[in-house]
Each structure stands twice: as C-alpha cells, then as structure tokens.
C-alpha cells in the first residue's frame, strides 16, 4: 500500500513541478495597444496623439459627415429627401434625445487633446519648442470642439436658460460627472484656449494644412466671436490672420477645381482624406450625391431657391448639378468613388467675411473686404456693405459646409422644417427649444449632474 501512496505523492509532486501555473503565466500580450500611463515619453508620442485627434475629427460622427450635414439640412440651404432614410429627422426638426450627434465624438477629441495639453514637456525627450507647438495645436482643437458642442447643445437660441456644455480640461480628471457650465464660462474657456494656443504655436512648424496651424487659432477665434457678436475680438482676430499674408482668396478660375485638389492657397486647415483612409460611404460626398451607376445615398439635396442666390456667371454655380430631379451639390467634396477629398474646416474666405462683418459692426470699411469675394467669383460687386449682403455672401460662399444654420440662428431668422418632397412641414420662429440639440439620453442616464435642455 505504501508504495502506491509514494507513487501518488510522486505524481502529485511531478504535477506541481511540471505544470504549476503562476499569475505571470497569465499575462496577456499587448500586441496592438499600449498603456496610456507608460507610453507618452517623447514629443513624437505627442505628435502621434495629435494625429489621432485629427483622425477622430474626421470621423463621420463629426466633421466626416454629421456636424456639417445636420446643420445644413436644418438651414434654408438643403433638406433630406430620405433616399436612404437618413437625416429626415433633422430636416424635419423631429429629433429626440436618442440621437447622440457629436456629443461623444467632440468629447473624445477633447479627451485625447487633454493628454497632449497636460503632458509635462520638461519630462519628455525631444524638441520642446516643437512640443509646445503641438500642445498649442491640441489647445486650438480643444477650443474648436468646445465651440462645436456649445453651438449644438448650448441654450443661446432657445429663448431661456444660460447653460452651455461642460468644460473638460483633464483626461480622467477628478470630476467624471461634470455639470454644464454657463454659455459665458464656455465662451471664456474657448477664448482662453485660443489665445494660449496662438502664443504656444510657431508657424515654422506649419508645413502642411492637414494639421491645425498657428493662425488657425485666430481664425477660429474670429468665428466664435462672430457667432457671439463679440465684434472687436472678431475684428482683431480676423485681422491677424489677414495680416499674416499667408493665405489668399482663391481665384474665380480655380474655385471649382480647388475642391478637387487639396491644400489650396485659401485653405487654412483641412482634415486629410485619402484612398485608404476616408469616411467612405458614411462621408459627405455619398450623402450629397448619387453616381451615374446609382451608388450614393444622396439624401441631402439643395432647396430650389438656392439657384436664385447666385447671379449668372458666378463660378459657384459650378458646384451645383441641376440635371436631375433635384439640385445637388456635386462640387464640394466631389469624389464620390474613392472619397479622397480633404475636408476644409477653415477657409480664408470665411475669415475675410468674418472680418467684413466685424468691420461693419464696428464702423469700419466692410465693403472692401466683402467685395474680395464677388471679385474672385465672377459676380458683380456690392455697392454697399449691409448685414444682409454679408449674410448673402456667406451663404453663397459657404453653402454645404455647415455654416448657414448658425448664421440664420445668430441673426434670429425663422426656420423651416422640410419634408422629403421639399414641402415645408412647419415653420419655427426664433427662438425655439429646437435650436439646441437634446443632451443624449445616454449622458442623462449616466450623469445626473447633467441638465437636459427644455423640450426634450
């Protein structure tokens, strides 16, 4: 009997020796990922995250499609015919809190930007000047993302309330359940970020337009200031961009073609797209167009009156296709096969128009600035700079790029909900709760510090 017990014990020992398995044996491999805490060690890592930030901005949930299209279909430029069922809800102002819009995307951008901004430059290897430039870029983008959130979710056009959106300046900070800051607080944070961004950046590092440049910070500042009617700020910010002499209005001859190519003289900042990296069928072109072979969602078409805003000979008519049942945008973001067009986010023309409007509001020479556009578009010059003329020129120039909705709201226009046949379903007087997007229900469920906008 003993011998069996010995044998048994021997086998048991052999077990332990041969096959014991420790905690370390169960360590998983990190093949495609790295730890956040341990992998930001040099300036090159910051640049890699900055590229990630730009990539997130170009997703279809943000500038790749959503924020541009959502605003366009609610403006008097376009509406959704619901060809694939997309964007009818927005076109008809029937949205509810089940739609996320850019909430998650913009805060993802902010989260990654915060890792860059809060990195301790002194502890990183590499050129700290370049590091500071990257931190400035991240700060400018953080400002833009906060502004995008503010204009979509803030209560500035709802007739009551002063709530903006939560300002987030730390990655995994102490307060993971932030409440909404006021509109004024958010605005102040945006301005502060933009000023700081401008001071940290150095133009010598701006060698491509697919990353936000130093003067991009000023251009965004002019955009925000125009939106809120902070005219003197708008004036000085736009002036700095113009005085930099780095950009110019694209000429009439090149206007239509400039959308085919990337990095034009008028482009201050654009998001990169290429054959292998693009929003594809969830991008802008697929939403605006239908190809000859029938491919394309083509839900979003121009309203017929868009034709009337252009004079004959205006080169901008060249972006419209009037050959089908509907008027379509085939000129901006034209590549509907390989989807390779970069998405311009800041064009010099917008800054000029911001400047003109700021001049008008502050009593300066707006007309000269305003006429820089028709002069380069084959259109007749304005004889007078009025608010209406400036808004008209903005609409002509910036159509399909997502600006018109904000222009209409900030000037208190009455909006129209449009059905799939182009019929006006309802008119919505300014102000209205519908002009602020609902805070997504997922956010409301997760964070009871969050206050929902009225009406949802």
């Amino acid at each position, binding site marked *: 009997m003993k011998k*069996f017990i010995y*044998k*048994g014990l021997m*086998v048991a020992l052999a077990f332990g020796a*041969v*096959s014991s*398995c*420790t*905690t370390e044996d*169960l*360590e*998983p491999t990190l*093949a*495609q*990922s*790295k*730890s*956040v805490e341990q*992998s930001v060690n040099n300036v090159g*890592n910051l640049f*890699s*995250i900055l*590229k*990630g930030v730009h*990539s997130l901005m*170009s997703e279809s949930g943000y500038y790749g499609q959503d924020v541009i299209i959502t605003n366009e279909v609610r403006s008097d430029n376009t509406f*959704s015919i619901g*060809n694939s*069922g997309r964007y*009818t809800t927005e076109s008809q102002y*029937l949205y*509810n809190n089940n739609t*996320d819009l850019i909430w998650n995307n913009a*805060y993802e951008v*902010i*989260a*990654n930007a915060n890792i860059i901004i809060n990195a301790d430059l002194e502890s990183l290897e590499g050129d700290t000047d370049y590091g500071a430039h990257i931190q400035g870029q991240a700060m400018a983008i953080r400002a833009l993302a906060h502004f995008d959130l503010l204009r979509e979710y803030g209560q500035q056009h709802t007739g009551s309330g002063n709530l903006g959106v939560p300002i987030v300046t730390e990655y*995994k900070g102490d307060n*993971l359940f*932030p409440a909404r800051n006021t509109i004024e607080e958010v605005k102040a944070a945006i301005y502060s970020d933009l000023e700081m961004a401008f001071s940290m950046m150095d133009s010598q590092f701006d060698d491509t337009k*697919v990353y936000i440049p130093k003067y991009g910070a000023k251009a965004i500042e002019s955009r925000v200031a125009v939106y809120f009617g902070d005219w003197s700020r708008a004036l000085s910010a736009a002036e700095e961009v113009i005085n930099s002499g780095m950009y110019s209005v694209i000429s009439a001859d090149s206007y239509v073609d400039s959308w085919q190519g990337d990095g034009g003289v008028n482009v201050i900042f654009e998001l*990169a797209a290429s*054959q292998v990296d693009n929003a594809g069928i969830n991008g802008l072109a697929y939403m605006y167009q239908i190809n000859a*072979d*029938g*491919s*394309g969602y083509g839900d979003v078409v121009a309203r017929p009156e868009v034709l009337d805003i252009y004079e004959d000979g205006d080169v901008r008519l060249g972006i419209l296709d009037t050959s089908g049942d509907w008027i379509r945008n085939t000129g901006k973001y034209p590549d*509907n*096969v390989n989807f390779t067009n970069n998405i311009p986010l800041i064009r010099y023309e917008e800054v000029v128009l911001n400047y003109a409007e700021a001049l008008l509001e502050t009593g300066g020479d707006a007309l000269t600035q305003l006429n820089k556009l028709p002069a380069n578009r084959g259109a007749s010059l304005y004889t007078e700079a009025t608010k209406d003329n400036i808004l008209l020129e903005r609409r002509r120039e910036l159509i399909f790029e997502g600006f018109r909705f904000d222009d209409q709201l900030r000037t208190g226009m009455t909006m129209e909900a449009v059905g*799939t*046949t182009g019929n006006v379903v309802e008119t919505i007087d300014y102000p209205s709760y519908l002009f602020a997007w609902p805070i997504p*229900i997922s*956010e409301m*469920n*997760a*964070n*009871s*510090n*969050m206050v929902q906008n009225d009406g*949802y």
Partner: protein
Amino acid sequence: MKKSLQGLLTLLLALVVQIGFAQEKTVSGTVLDEDGLPLPGVNVIEQGTSNGTQTDFDGNYSISVAPGDVLVFSYVGFQQQEITVTDSDVYNVSLLVDAASLDEVVVTGYVTQKKSDITGSLVEVGEEQLQEYAAASVDQALQGNVAGLAVSSSSGTPGSVANIRIRGISSITAGNEPLYVIDGVPISNGNVNASDATSSISALAAIDQSTIESITVLKDASATAQYGARGANGVILITTKGGKYGTTRFNFSSQVGFQNDAIDQPTPLTNAQRLELAGEAYWNDNRDFFASEAEAVDYVLNNVGLFPQWDADGRPESNWQQVLSNPDALFQQYSLSASGGGEDNRFFASIGYLEQEATVIGSAFERISGSLNFSKDFNPSLKFSSNNTASYSFQDAFLERSAYFDSPRTATYFMNPLRMPYNDDGTPAEIGGSLPNPLISTRDNFNENRFTRIISGNSLDWEIGGGFSAGAKFNVDFQLYNYRTYTNRNYGYGVPTSGDASQYDRTNAFYVFQNYLNYDFEINPDHIFDIKLVQEYQSSRSYFLGGAGENFADDGLFYLSSAGTPTQATSSFNDWYMGAYLGLLQYSAFDSRYVLNLSYRKEGNSRFAADNRWGDFYSVGAAWNIHKENFMANAGAVDYLKLRGSYGVTGNADIGLNNYQSLFTYGVDYNGEGAQAVSTFGNNDLSWEINKTFDIGLEFGLFQNALTGNFAYFNRKSEDLLLDVPLSQTTGFATQTQNIGELTNSGFEFQLTANIINTEDVGLSIGGNLATVENEVTKLPLDPNGNERTVTTTITRIETGHPVREYYMPTWAGVNPETGLNEWYIDGEGGETTTNFNEAEAVFQGGNSVPTITAGMNLNFNFKGFFINAQGYYAGGHKIYEGWHLYLHQTNGYPILAYNGYQSLLDRWQEPGDNARHSRFTTAGEPWQRHSKYLYDADFLRLRTVTVGYDLPSSAMEQIGMTSARIYVRGNNLATWVKDDNLLYDPEQDLGGETGLETPPTKAVLVGVNLTF
C-alpha cells in the same frame, strides 16, 4: 479501514510468499458471464503489479504468476473478482453483473458518475434525439430536449451561429454562452466570421453530429462549479463515439431532403396594389390639386417614377420574392463509420459529408469531415487514447446582418417591384440605381467563408493501484479561417472601383493541458470516497491577416495580386490564458443512500489585472436516495426517488480582452501616418463576475420506472456583474467595464416521461418538459447623486425591478378614426393621446426578448419495427420587435414609391370613420419612430421533428450479412403556431430583440437510411 488493512496484509503476505517461493508458472482459464457466455476483454491483473493481460474473443487468458499471487478480474459492468493462485494451473471465472452499475453512468464533467451519485441538475441527450433535427451544427438539436435551455438561431443560413441560453440571462455585458466541452476538454465556440455584415459561421458547425455519442447539459452549480469561471452559463459536454471490443462494425447513414422557409415571410404588395396605394397617398397629400382620387391615380400612372414605363409595358408583375428564393433547397448528409477493437485497443473512425443550401439564392454550406478515436492499452494499467476530428467547411455567405441592398433577402422587399428581374430574352436585367439586381450579384460576386478545424485530444491514464490513478490530457483545437470577397467590375457596386476584392485569414490555436490525480478509497463498504485533483492550463492565440484591393484589369481575377490598387493591409494578434487548480470530493454512504459532492476550484484569467486575476469557486451538492432506505422497501410503486440539492459559486470572465488596462490603440491613422488615440478607460479593480446558484430537485421513477421524471427549482444570483457601466461621455468614453450590479434568474423545471406500453412488439412513450425563468435586474451602478445609471436604447431599457433589456418605448394608441393619424399615449399608459411622437412618454412594455416559459414534448411509438418519433417545442412570455418597419410597414412614401411594403398595409385608414390598423397614407418619408405597434407577443409552438420509419427485421438482415437497417422519412419544423397574428416574421428570432432580414428557420422533409453491417 478494515478492508484496506486486509489489502495491506494480503500484499505483505504476497511479498513474503513471493520471496519464499519465487517460482513463476503460467496459469490460464476462461472468463464467462452469468449465462455462460465468454467475456472478451476482461482485465486480468496480478494484484499490486503492472503484470496483467486481457481475455481474448473466447474469454480465454493466460498469465505468468507465482503461487500465492492474487489475480484480479475486472470488467466494466461486472463485479470485480479476486482469486489467489494455488497449485492449480487453470482458473475459470464466472463474473457476476454488478447491480450498482445497472445504474446508468453519466459524464458529469471531469468525472463520470452513477446516476444515483449525482447531486446536480443535468440532462443527457442521446444520439437518437440529436439526429432527429437536420442542421449543420448539433446545438440546434438541443431545443426542446432540455428543460430550461433555449436555442435561438441568429439566422437560418446553413452553418450560422445559434445562441444558447441555459436558465436565462446571467450577465448584461459579459457573455451568456455556455461552455462547450468535448471529451473532457473545453473548446472554443461561437462565431468565427471576420465580417459583421455577412452570414455568421459557427465553430460548432465544423463538428459532424454523427460522431457524437451523447450530449450532457449541466445546469446547476454542483455540476458546473468544477468548470469554475466558465461554468456560469451552464456547460454542454459532448462525448464522441468510441470503439468496442469485437469484430469491426460498419455503419452507413444518409439523409437527403429539401427545405423551405418554416413559415411564409411577409407577402409584398403587388404592383396593382402599389398603384392603388400610391394614388391614394397623392390624393391624401394634395386634395386641393386633384379633383378625385381617380385623378390622383392617373397622375401617378402618367408621371411618378417608373409607373408610366410599367403601364406602357402592360403592367407586369415582377415577383421578386419568388425570383430570389431557392425553393426546395437541398439538404444531404452522409456518414460512414467503422468501429471495433482488439485485445488492447479500440477504435472508431468515420468520414462524413454534409451539404445544405439556403432557402434564398446564392447561399449554401458544405462540410467534409473525418474522425479517428483510438485507444491503446500499453499495459493493463497504462492506457492511451487519442480522439481526433478534422473538418473543412465552406459557406457561401451573403450580406444579411443588416439591410444591405446587395442581399437577395433584402431585395425581396427593398427592390422597387416596378423593376423587372429579367430582360425579355430571359437574361437578368441590369437594373440601375442603388439596388443592383441580386440575380447578377449573387452570380458574379462572392462572400465566402472557409473554415478548417482540427481537434486532437490525447490522454494517458495510469492505474497506479491501491485506488490511485493519475493521468494527463493534452488537447489542441486548431482553426484556420479564411474569408474572401469579390465584387465584379461590370455591374453593381464594383463598377466605380473597377471591381474590388478582399481576403482575410485567421489562425486560432487553443491548447489545453490537464493533469489529474485520483484516489478512490473506502473506510468500509458503507463509506466510499473519491478524491480528484486536477490542474488545468489553457491558452488561446489568434493571428489575423488580411488585405483588400480594387481595380481589376479583367474579369475572372479574384485575388489581390491582380488588383491594381491595394486599399488595405492589416494584421493583428491577440491572446488569453487561463490556469486552474481543482479539487473534487465525492462521498457516498450506505450504497449511495447518502451522497455528498464537494468541489473547489482556483482559477486565474488573463482578462484581469495581476492582483485580481485569481478567483475561488466552489460547490456543495448532496443527494438522498430515498428509495434505498429500508422504510421504502415496501413502497412497491416507487422504484427510484431522490432528493438532491446544491449550492455553488461560479464565475464569468467572458469580456473583451485587455479591458482592465487603460490603453492607447494604434489602429487609427491620419494623413497616411500611424496615429494613436485612447481606446479603453481601464479598470485595475476588474475581477470575476460571480454567480451563486441554489438548486433543489426531486427525481423519481414509479411503476417499474414506467413513469420517470424530475422536478427542480433554481435560483441563480449574479453579482459583481461585469458591466459596461455608462460613463458621462464628457470623459471621452461611453462606458467603463466595472464589477457592479446584480441580477437574478429563478424558475421551475419539470421533466416527465411515461413508458405507457413496453412489450416486445409495441412500445409507446410520451414525455415532456417545462421550464420557467424569471429574470430581474436587482442592482445597477449609481452616479454621485445616488441616481441609477440605466441603459436605454430606442426600444429597450435596463433598470432595476425589470428583466434585462425589457422593451421600453412609447405606447401606440391606434389610428384615430377621424383623422387617420397615428396616436400615442402621452403618459404611455392610457388616457390622453397625442399625434406628436416626441410628446409621448416611453414606458416599459412588459417582457424582453427571452422566453419566460419553454416547453418540449415528445412522443415515441413503435410497433413491430415501425416507429414514429415526434417532438414539439413551445416558447412564450417574450416579445419581439419588428425591424425595418419605417421602410416596409408604414404608410409613408417608402413602401409605395421607393421600396416595397407588405400586403398587410392594405388595412389602412381611407376616410373618416375607418377603424384601420394602419394610418393614412402619405407620399412623404417619415423619420424613425419606434413604438409599441411594432412590438409583438412572440409566443409560438412548433412541431420540431416527426420521424416515421421502419427497422428491418434482424432475421432478414442476417441473411444478407447485415446487423440492422433502418429507413425513415423525417420532417423538421413542419408546423408552427404563432400567437400574434400581426407578427409576420418567423417568431424564432435572434436574442437581439429585433426581426432582421436574415434567412428564417427552415422546414425540411428528408428521407434517410441507417445501415449497420
């Protein structure tokens, strides 16, 4: 203790004797059973040594021993006998049947147990039942045979994945799939497809059912805790066939038949109906413009879309539904096996072939498989066995997991029916627009899954002696998966890119190592113990490689080397590891009158941080075999009566890899350069999800076991749920995986079988099972203000006090007879109504998509070789939401102008006073609004299988040299009853909760033969 002392003394004596008279001689004899028939394969061992042999075909043996040695004769199912060698050279032995072993032996995990020693809740499904249902994967056959087990297929496409839930949903975020174990070794399962868009392909479909001997489903903690972490959702033990000692037997079986959709799918509108509705919609929208409805119809006919052309062509019908279906789809399955064994070896070998077409064009599944199970006794105490199976599966998949316009299933409803499928010359029409003709795309494009799976399980078992045994197992599950797509350059989506193609390969390697040490002993025959220690290690490594390209110079080129423009190259690797130590104790007292089973398992998993990697799991089970009590001796009607109960803690770690770490992903790129972005919030505290299961049951057999059955109650409490807790998205993340939240599942299960007639010529038995499961979320995470963080979608919500993902949406109040508009209840529960959807409160609708009651019924009848087997299945208490209704089942422009609606839309409001189900038609498109009109009771009853057959008389068989022959006709899913008339789709749906455009379940009629020779 007495016995082992005796054993020791005998041994000592033997040693002494051996030293004294070490004179070996050869003894021989014959081993017979009680009836005097020779017993081949009986182990004859000199006690305490490895010296031994086996009896031959005629029961003869010979062995070299010395006088005084003890020979031990043992054979499965017979009582062991010991004989001390004396002067004689011949020892004939007659072995007695072991009464205890008549007690059925069941595989219960790492051990096999007598039925009376089982303390847990388990169900064994035998070979015959498994083969009643014709499908590529064997899990489909479990439906209705196991109380508390619900199968729901993600699609009827052959080879696709079925979801199995045992006793409800135990987890919200982590997996709910049971663990699959083949011949004692855990294997990987689930979907292997690399694409989210095309048909899924199940790893289980790679296994040929005809090689499976039985399946045991473990349901309670006493049975599943030995599998620790992965046992929480139940365990499905698959036992493959082995060989038996004796002449080689061959078995051939075949099944051939055809299949159609189990129930008719929604009938699309005819073009005449479409015209009527379109005209009406124009009339409704433009009362000022048209003088009459007839004028509006004329307008449509002359002006709108394709109507004028259709009118000019003589108003043809396109019948897309018929054109795109594959009626009487082929099913064929063949298998040939051989089994047998020699004195020290046994084998089972088989080859199998299965082909199954889908009921829609362009999709099929094919599998060829082979297996070899071989065991060899190196010597009587050292046994080796190797179970090997290999298969190659091919699935012609299609885009079915959303409304992809290229899918024939989608096109049935989304294709504008005014477009004709064929040209006048009979060739498929090259239809323009965003919906290409599927007749061409299924012909010229492909989405193909190829799957090769090799499972090899090898084990060595060593009978050490003295009650000790030890062994080791090594198992490889090797999977090669290949996915290829091609879109032609001439027609359809491939035109803009001049054709495109992609190819992805995944290699999965799963290794399992197991070692065990077993010690059986008894203090005296009234107290028997069995202790087992197991050590287990499992690793999984997965390598992925793929690429895509476009722009082909010519047709017939499908590979990337011919693509002009490469558009993607990708590769990745991931892994996980599991280690465990397990101890099992079985104690059986007074001839199994009282049984106690204990298990303890320590398990570590790579999905958790080092400090939280190990978890402790255990179970306690007890059984009282009341029929063995003396006081039952006179209870004549009761043959078997057992009360059993168990409690145990199991775990669940079935979450994504690396979730505990805070990570950057480098899977983003920008401007042609690599980039990084945060991808996981991380949680170093992450650890096991815990399930605490209590189970009590009563099993009985009455009237000479003519009536057998059991009754059970269970309560499963899941704690520290691995939950993707919603975060404020201002963090940049939607969720973080945390251990928080609780839910319970509880229910009753009954199983009853009555052998009503059991004579030589006639047999009749009927049986049934019924199970209930009540699911409730009892705890969810709170935010800093103490508010519950619920999870809400457009149709469901997770909230405490409700089942997981109970349907939650505005309540439809019907169509207003005066205005013809849809109305909803403002507070969701009756009372005031509104026509503004956003004004209507979303409320709980009662029930989720998981059945709360399931039942199975079966009937077996035979008469002189003729037999009928039938089985039915019922599921109820759950609901199902209709997907895609905006485009196909609403009174807007989509179903009459763009796509094609169902004929049920004809029940629509036309004029004031109409009480209609559907509202007033309009030409406009509507936005998505999901509400209770499209939520249906999903209760259904289905006749799963009916088999009618004949076993040829054995006398006739022997004359032609065969052992047995069976011929039969089989029907699967021949009839279905659906409770809710408004539910147009098949009620047997994926647990996603929404009907889709996947292939529905099929009904099949098959003929088969089964020959043994």
